[in-house]
């Protein structure tokens, strides 16, 4: 079985305004040593999915149903129902986590060395000296410059990229089987981003750690992931090996996302013969708010292919919820018409 198998996960927030299902029936699986990219726009539920894995969703958020099976030596355990003390051993021990904001994810009153050593002390019964030695080793592993000195420095003395390296050192200190990286490079400069991604890929190869990489950056996914899951409005809409997905996206949303990437080589010719850069392609409309998800396929109000459906040829886009179908081996799509979309139309009413 895969290392981590999430099925039908529902995580909802019970706010005064009503129940908000941020994650609505997500199923994912990650094999040992592989990288799965979870892609989607802000607010699509990808971070909540990540937080749900370690049950870090705080009130008023609740995991309502589904299972998160983590395979281990004693057989798989369900993280959704695992008692808190055992769960604490999984957190940091078997699953490490890297957060988006390296500037605020480190405790300002402790030295870098103390924080990495704490991660070690929490899971391995060893002396303070041994933990410190391990911390130094980890800082070296994540290629932090001058690790001996950094060990006794405070987070505010480090740059964003350096802090993210420290976060990675903390997450990997106990050699977890899986690292959940929630937008690890979003807050960093592009050059630092590349370094951090290289580092993650390198560590994955050396330590055999599986990675769940959450991002909204398709470029990052293309470079690092074995498999990709695209999320929209709380659901997985498409899941495929990275290469397949980029070569032939099947869901209209994925098609839109890929089309929206700027192409540095594209040039358009104007009527007078001069060439200009073409306008960026966009997906019209806004991500729907979880309180007011449209019925049926949640993407249909923004979908260029949904226009005119239902035709005589199939179900209504605003009717039943489309199933996640395996259209090609390993390639899953949640769209009634995937594979036979036809030509896109201009999207009309975009009020939702």
């Amino acid at each position: 079985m895969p290392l981590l198998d999430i099925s039908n996960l529902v995580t909802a927030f019970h706010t005064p305004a009503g129940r908000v299902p941020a994650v609505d029936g997500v199923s994912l699986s990650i094999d040992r040593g592989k990288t799965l990219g979870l892609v989607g726009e802000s607010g699509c539920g990808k971070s909540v999915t990540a937080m749900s894995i370690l049950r870090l969703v705080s009130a008023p958020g609740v995991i309502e149903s589904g299972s998160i099976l983590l395979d281990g030596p004693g057989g798989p355990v369900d993280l959704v129902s695992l008692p808190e003390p055992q769960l604490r051993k999984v957190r940091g021990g078997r699953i490490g986590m890297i957060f988006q904001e390296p500037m605020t994810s480190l405790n300002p009153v402790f030295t870098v060395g103390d924080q990495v050593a704490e991660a070690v002390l929490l899971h391995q019964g060893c002396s303070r000296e041994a933990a410190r030695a391990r911390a130094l080793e980890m800082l070296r592993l994540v290629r932090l410059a001058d690790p001996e000195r950094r060990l006794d420095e405070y987070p505010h003395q480090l740059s964003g990229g350096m802090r993210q390296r420290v976060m990675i050192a903390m997450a990997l200190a106990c050699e977890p089987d899986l690292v959940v990286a929630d937008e690890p490079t979003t807050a960093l400069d592009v050059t630092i981003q590349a370094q951090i991604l290289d580092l993650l890929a390198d560590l994955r190869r050396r330590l055999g750690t599986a990675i769940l990489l959450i991002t909204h950056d398709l470029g990052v996914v293309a470079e690092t992931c074995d498999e990709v899951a695209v999320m929209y409005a709380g659901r997985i809409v498409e899941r495929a090996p990275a290469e397949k997905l980029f070569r032939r996206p099947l869901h209209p949303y994925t098609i839109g996302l890929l089309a929206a990437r700027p192409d540095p080589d594209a040039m358009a010719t104007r009527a007078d013969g001069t060439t200009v850069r073409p306008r960026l392609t966009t997906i019209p409309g806004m991500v729907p708010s979880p309180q007011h998800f449209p019925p049926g396929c949640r993407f249909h109000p923004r979908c260029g292919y949904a226009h005119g459906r239902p035709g005589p040829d199939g179900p209504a886009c605003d009717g039943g919820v489309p199933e996640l179908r395996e259209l090609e081996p390993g390639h899953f799509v949640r769209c009634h018409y995937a594979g036979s979309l036809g030509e896109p139309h201009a999207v009309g009413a975009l009020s939702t």
Partner: protein
Amino acid sequence: MERSHGFWGEAWRRYRRRPLAMAALAFVAFLVIVATLAPAIAGTKPVLCRYKGRIYAPCLGYFDRRLEPAIFTKDKFRGTYPKNLAEKDPASWAIWPLFFQDPYRSVRGDEWPGRPENPAMDQGRPSWTNPFGTDQAGVDVLAKMVHGTTVALLVGFVSMGIAGTIGIIVGAIGGYFGGWIDMLASRITEIVMCVPTLVLILAILAIIEKPTIWHTMAIIGMTGWTGIARLTRGEFLRLKGSEYVTAARAAGAGPARIILRHILPNSLAPILVPITFGIASAILTESGLSFLGFGPPPPSASWGSILNGARSNLGMWWLVLFPGTAIFLTVLAYNLIGEGLQEATDPRLREARK
């Protein structure tokens, strides 16, 4: 390259830049020194003396009667050392306190060679022998104040120690766990907040047979924690959602570790400020009680109880001026320290530093 300072190092650097706050800190340090060395500064018992071949330190009797060597009671010194030492052992010698006056009794005539008896009542105005005057019973005011410093400091530290401990525990538990626990903690805080401290103290002191200064401190501490609890709760509410706390949870830390290691150190700075102000107000409360006559019973001396002596005799202005000034300066010092701390640890200023 800037050396590692840490949060408190940075705060101290900024605190040091405020001359008034530094002066206030120096003043409190001075009070601590005075309180510790009180028996050596003012008293009638030798700091060290040689008597019948052995060395004694009778001045320790000011801290606790039992520390006064038994031999002096046996030889019937009755608290007067200079004459007795000379008469009963001509070979004796003694190192005397800086200032030969007793905080608990009037110094009799000729107790110290060539010195007249302490004047009493309104004759006891400030003079060279009694710089701050004497009270109705002829007890030297300066000696009383020197020995009363201990009370003033203890009241602040002990009562705010109690209040700080209770307040931080209640606030931390409520703020961290939330839900019905928070509800309960908040309601208890509000109930205690409604209790009028002064009335409670008066009532309890009336019930207790032999009230001491410790009872007063305990009551001030046990009623004065509400503000600290509320502030702690707020800090915990703010910090428990912070990313480094989530990161600590993701690393597998349990509630105790998160509360003690991750949230508390980060919330200590803002909590320390009301504790400092609380020390000032505890001193004021104690002085007020003593002034009303509910202070520690004699012989323990408190600044407020000296003020009490002036109530019946308004002509003795020195009984108001000197202890009143001491109380004022001490309260002011603590307030200045609190303000300095606030400025030094303000997160907005911390950001501006970069």
